[in-house]
Each structure stands twice: as C-alpha cells, then as structure tokens.
C-alpha cells in the first residue's frame, strides 16, 4: 500500500479548508501542506452561499452589537469568548479577501458596501451581488495556487482517520480516478468538510454534503456537539430545494400566505411596514420564520402544490431594476429552475434544511479533544452559532476559524514526531475492510438509494422543525433498523475507476452515524431553544440546558450524550426579542444605500 506524508492536511477544500491551507503556509513556508477533497476545490459547497458575509465595517456599528446579535440569535447557546474572537477577526478576514481580489460590491466612493441581513441590528453584511460564496471560494482557490507548499489531492475520498498513541496521524483515502487506496500521513489534520444536509430529503445542500468529517471524527472517538440544532431556511424553492437568499427579504421582499397577508405579524415579529425594518417581520431570524410557516400551515393558510405546501415570497414591488442589480441570481434561479419571473410573479417557497449549527466539538482555535485533529467551518462547532445561526455569519466563520485552525495546526505540526508503525497496520485493515464490505462482497440485497431515502424520510419526520418524544423514539428504532440493513448492502459497481456508487455507499455509512448523533441529542434535550423545538417541552430551560450536548459513539454504533457548560462572558441569558420593541428602539427603517 502506497503512503505519502505531509505536515498539515486539510480534509475538504472549500472556504475553511483553503483559508486554513493558506494560513498554515504563511506560518511556516517550509511545512508540507496538503488539501484532500472528494471534489475539485471550486466545486465545494461554499460556492452556493449567496447573501453575504458579516463583519463590522461602518462607523455606526460596533463589535459588541455584532456579538449581541449573534448571541441572542443563538438563544444564548453560543460560547461568548468564541463570539468575541469571531466578531473581532471577521472584518480583518473580509478585508484580507479584498486584498486577494474578491469583487465585493462597493459604495460610489470606492469603499466596501454592506447590506442588511436577518437578525442583524445593523448593516454589516459584505456581499458580492448574490453570489458571495462563489466569489469568496474562487478568490481563495485562485490565491491558493500561488502557494508552492500546498499540494492538492483533488477527487480523493477519505474513508478513515488513523489514530495511535492518542493522536491523529493520517488518513486512508481512495483516489477516485484510479480506485487506488492509499495512506496519507499527516502530523495535524483539519476537517473542513462542511455540513450534512443530505441526511434530510429536502435541503439546500449540494449532493456532496454527507457529513463525512463529522462521521470521521465521531468514529475516531472525538465528540460531536449540539447536533440537535438544524437550521431550516424559510425560503427554499419547492422540489429542488434551491435557496432564495435572505437578501431577497433584506432588499424588501414580503412573505405572504394564501390570502396575500403578511402573516409574520401574527408571530411576535413586529408590525408590517412597507420598507424592511432590521430584526423585524421578514428580517426576523430563520428559526422563527420557519416555525411560523408550520403554524400557518396548521391554520390552513398555506398554498398546496404537487411538492408540498408553500407560502409566497413577493418581490414584485421592488421593480425590475433593483432585482437585476441587487438580486440577479435570485431572478436567474427562479427563471431557469422554476420557470417563474419574480419581477412579475409570486415565488413559491417553503422551509428547507440549510445548515447544521452542531458539528465536531472544537475549542476557540479549532482543536478537538483528540490531539492532532482540528476542524473549521460548518463541520465544526466552536460554538459561535449556538441554537440558531444568523444569516451571513457562516462565511466569515469559515475564514476566521479556518485561519485560526491553520495557524494552530502549523505550530503543532512543527513539534511532532513522524507517524508510528501502528497506523500503517491500521491502514491495511481499512483497505481490507473496503474490499470485503463493498468491492468483493458476495450477496447483499439492499440498494444505497433505498436506505438513503428511508433515512431521509425518518429524519424529516422525527427531527424536523417540531419534535417530540414518541417521534424521536420511533426515529431511533428506525435508524437502528437501517444500520442493520446497511450491512446487507449490494453494489452494482465493482470497478476501480471512478466508482461513484462505492462513494455513495461510504457517504451513506457516514450519514447513518451522523443521523444517529442528531436523533440522540434531540431526544435528550428536553427543552425548546432556537432551532430545537420540542412540542412536549415548549419552554427554554436554562437551569438544566444552558449547556452544549456532547455526543460520543459507542462501539456498537449507538451513542451516549453528555453536557458541557456554555461560556458566558458579558451577556447573561435574556429573552430573544424581535419586532419594534423598546429594547431595540434604535432599529431604524432601512435606507437603501443606492
């Protein structure tokens, strides 16, 4: 079995992975740095992020206000030391991207322009039209090409972390092109594989978002944190799950029920004004808006379609000119994929699984409890997002914690010994497992797509926008059954060359583990907070649950859940207030920049 060796290895080449790689290369140009990804870097899911990246930029704003919006938005489950570091470093990171060429939208005087965003009290969201993630990713990718020490393994699929002597020392991976199974040793490994939206049937997430990094860490004994917190974005296009960015509401779009009524006024989100008001109505946080949809549906006020019930997003009053200059991608997506023109027609939307607040548990520098293993971006849970992430905080999170993890890993790797012989033996075991379980397997009756479909339906039913104990118990039993049936899987494809069916089967194995961790965290948290809403425990319970869930994997595939206190520095838990209340009297009617 071949083996290669590096100092720092990024698993995943999206926003966090590329930022980490550059940071590591800048700490010490003598280090050997590698990025391994199952896709070419520019295919990574960062590319789909639309609305923008938050970072305090204007004199009317302050770091404390960004911190407060993030912490209250997260229903006080965010670690406040991490949030403080995040809001402090986000503007520098966004500026660094500007210096690397990112085509940010500008004011007429040449300075960076910022826009309003849901749950944010001030305008602080930097944007590149409505393709912010695309431009950030391509800027990072193109910039990374000038760093000689960065080696790339494009289209390699990591199947296992190699751990010996209490530290991570490498991975086993399959080169898709040839089917070759290889060991890649590394002194430090940073997981940057993004989220796991594909465990659900209806998601904005790309096909590649199967929670690989979460499962890799979980199987290696590193705990996952806050996995019950799943963000539904309120405005997905039915059938495709394509996201209509929050910027559409920030620019002044209305949410209407079947009677053409701005129904959010019935859900403690303020009173309707013709122009957008920050932290009010359509600019309330994502969890509240998605929950309001379910209530509206129960009242029979949504619209039935062949792809489920929807409400309408109305952009018509914004006019063609504004839609074309500020929301061109929204119009393109509606026209090309839904055959609807938002300039003249109502856009059908429904809540769609969008983001995982939870992930691999890390400290403020991206380090996990397992030595040599770090994580950054959506795969990680630092945690700045708490129980509900605010829109436009995830892109800067990739940058801030990608850079921090890259630096930390580079410094750590400089002091480590080479890998032990034991991990090479583990790698051989892994190669044998892949051959026996998949490529040379005899018998087996289950199809990948069947088990995947049943898992997705189970997750939507049991771990959807509203949960309760009977549903979660039922889901737990169903996942157990699916794990057993997964062992009986049969592949049509036994080839070595670019075996995407093998890849799908390995992804499904990862997803079943991640699904189990989410189900158990949701079952054990008997309170409602942010995106975790229990019908049987409707209130927040700070006495018992102002704490992070930590979920560990048992040898038999089941899990155990423990709790860890939340770090509170300056903002004691309070009530989340949206709408034009006294507490947020400074919320001002938005004025368009141009």
């Amino acid at each position, binding site marked *: 079995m071949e083996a290669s060796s590096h100092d720092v290895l990024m698993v995943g080449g999206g926003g966090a992975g590329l930022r980490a790689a550059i940071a590591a290369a800048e700490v010490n140009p003598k280090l050997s740095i590698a990025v391994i990804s199952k896709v070419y870097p520019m295919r990574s899911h960062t590319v789909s992020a639309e609305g923008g990246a938050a970072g305090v930029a204007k004199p009317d704003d302050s770091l404390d206000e960004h911190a407060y919006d993030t912490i209250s938005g997260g229903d006080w489950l965010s670690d406040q030391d991490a949030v403080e570091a995040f809001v402090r470093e986000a503007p520098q990171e966004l500026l660094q991207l500007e210096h690397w060429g990112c085509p940010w939208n500008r004011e007429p005087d040449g300075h960076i322009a910022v826009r309003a965003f849901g749950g944010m009290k001030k305008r602080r969201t930097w944007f590149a039209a409505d393709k912010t993630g695309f431009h950030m990713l391509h800027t990072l990718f193109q910039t990374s*090409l000038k760093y000689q020490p960065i080696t790339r393994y494009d289209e390699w699929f990591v199947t296992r972390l190699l751990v010996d002597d209490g530290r991570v020392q490498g991975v086993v991976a399959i080169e898709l092109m040839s089917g070759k199974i290889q060991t890649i040793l590394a002194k430090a490994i940073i997981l940057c594989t993004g989220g796991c939206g594909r465990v659900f049937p209806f998601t904005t997430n790309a*096909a590649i978002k199967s929670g690989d990094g979460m499962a890799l860490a979980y199987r290696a004994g590193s705990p996952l944190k806050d996995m019950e917190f799943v963000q539904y974005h309120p405005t997905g296009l039915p059938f495709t799950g394509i996201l209509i960015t929050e910027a559409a509401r920030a620019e002044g779009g209305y949410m209407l029920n079947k009677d053409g009524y701005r129904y959010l006024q019935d859900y403690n989100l303020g009173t309707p004004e013709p122009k957008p008001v920050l932290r009010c109505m359509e600019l309330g946080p994502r969890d509240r808006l998605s929950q309001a949809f379910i209530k509206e549906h129960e009242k029979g006020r949504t619209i039935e379609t062949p792809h489920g019930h929807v409400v309408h997003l109305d952009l018509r009053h914004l006019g063609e000119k504004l839609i074309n200059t500020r929301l061109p991608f929204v119009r393109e997506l509606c026209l090309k994929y839904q055959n609807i023109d938002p300039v003249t027609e109502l856009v059908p939307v429904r809540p769609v699984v969008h983001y995982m607040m939870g992930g691999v548990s890390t400290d403020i520098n991206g380090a996990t409890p397992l030595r040599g293993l770090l994580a950054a971006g959506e795969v990680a849970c630092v945690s700045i997002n708490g129980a509900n992430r605010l829109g436009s905080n995830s892109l800067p999170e990739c940058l801030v914690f990608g850079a921090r993890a890259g630096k930390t890993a580079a410094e750590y790797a400089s002091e480590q010994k080479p890998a032990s012989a034991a991990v090479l033996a583990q790698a051989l075991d892994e190669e044998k497992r892949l051959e026996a379980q998949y490529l040379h397997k005899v018998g087996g009756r289950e199809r990948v797509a069947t088990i995947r479909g049943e898992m997705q339906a189970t997750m939507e039913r049991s771990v959807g926008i509203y949960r309760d104990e009977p549903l979660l118990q039922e889901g737990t039993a169903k996942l157990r059954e699916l794990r057993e049936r997964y062992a009986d899987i049969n592949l049509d494809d036994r080839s070595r060359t670019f075996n995407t069916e093998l890849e799908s089967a390995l992804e499904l194995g990862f997803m079943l583990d991640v699904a189990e961790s989410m189900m158990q965290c949701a079952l054990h948290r008997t309170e409602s907070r942010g995106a975790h809403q229990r019908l049987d425990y409707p209130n927040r319970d700070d006495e018992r649950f102002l704490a992070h869930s930590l979920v560990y994997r048992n040898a038999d595939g089941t899990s155990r859940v423990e709790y860890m206190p939340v770090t509170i520095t300056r903002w004691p838990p309070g009530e989340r207030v949206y709408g034009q209340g006294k507490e947020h009297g400074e919320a001002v009617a938005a004025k368009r920049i141009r």
Partner: protein
Amino acid sequence: MMADKITLEIARYSPEHDQEPHFQSFEVPVHKEWVVLDALNHIKDTVDGTLTYRWSCRMGICGSCGMMVNGEPKLTCATFLSSYAKNGEKIRVEPLRYFPIVRDLVTELSDFLAKLKKVKPWLLPKDEPPLAQGEFLQTPEQVDRYKQFSMCINCTLCYAACPVVGLDPVFVGPAAIALAQRYNMDSRDQGAGERTAILAHPDGVWGCTFVGECTRVCPKHVDPAGAIQQYKIAAVLDWLKSFVAPRGA
C-alpha cells in the same frame, strides 16, 4: 402535447471493460421540473448503479455537471427534459467533447487545471498596502470593468465548444484567458506584464480564430470571446506603441 416518457441514449465507457465508448438506452419518466441530471440520478438510483457522472449543487454554480446533450455542451442541471420531449425526440448524453474520457460521462480535468494556474489567476498589485490601511478603493464602475470575467464557474463547456481546442490541445483556451483578463482589468492589479508570456504566446490569444462558440455556450455570460478580442487589441496597441516610444518612456 408532452410525452410522458423519453429515451436517453447515454455514452458508456469503462476502461476496465470496454475498448471504446458505446451507447446504452434508458427510458425515463418526463416530469415538468426534471432536468437531464434528475434523469441520470433516477437511472443510477433505481436501474443501474454503475452509471458514472459528476454532479453536486444542482443550481448551476458548482460547474460539475457539464455534458454534451444532443451535441451541445450543457449544464445538465439546467437542461429540462420537457424541452426535448415535445416532438418525441431522444436525448443523447455524452461526455464533454475534446477532453479525455475517464469513464462514462466523466472527463479528465487536470490539463484544464494546469492551464488555469499558468495564467497566474491571483491579484498581483505593485504596492500592496498593509491590511491596517483598509481596503483598496474601487468604484462600482471599476468593478464593472472586470466583473463579467470573474463569473466563470470552470464548467469547461467553452472548451467543449471551441474548435481550436479540438485541433490544438496546447491552446490555453477560453476560460483561462478570460480569467487572466479578469485580473488584468482589475484596478487593484498590475500583473498584466507577468501574464503576457502566456497570453501573447501563439498558444495564447493568437491561437483563437474568433469563432465565438465559447461565448454562445457559456451558462454564466462570461463572454470569453470578448475577453480574447479585448486582449488582442490591447496587445496590438502595446506593440505599435513600442515603435513610437522607446521602452520605459
């Protein structure tokens, strides 16, 4: 009247089993919102798990799912079955033209990636101010000068459309030239001189015979043909200037 089923003729090739590519037919249901990619996923999930292709975002931004559809380079996530189903047509799906085939609909991209890197697609400022001094100022008009060329998703449809790429595999090609021009036109960049060696080479812009197919097939309206023309004119003007003024003047 739209047919309720349609036949896909899909190019199949496995280097482990086949001497050369052949076609295999599959019948799939036509749903109004189904694109060619949905049909491929339907086949892979329920009929034949060996069917091999790339895809990810299904929203026209990751650039993975480009294929030849009835002879035209297309993003299959943005190509509706219904637009072919009207006249009982068949849909022929092949890997993107002019690229080596890895398997079925998957092409080899390493040569394309090497060409992208060759044009130095990163900002080369003459004097980069420290971060503490804030952003480079750039007016919306200055952004507009290069913005269009920054929209490339690297889907490689333009290479599959370009007859010069077919004849001369060394030609740098439309997307890479457009990307070079994206940085050349950026007011923060002074690296055009460093990119000249690649662009002004016979395998650079002068390889282009201005067929314009690249611009026609581009799903993101990047206009690589425009970038190439723009660069040629700039290069000729620089060359003429070298006669009237001594170097460095």
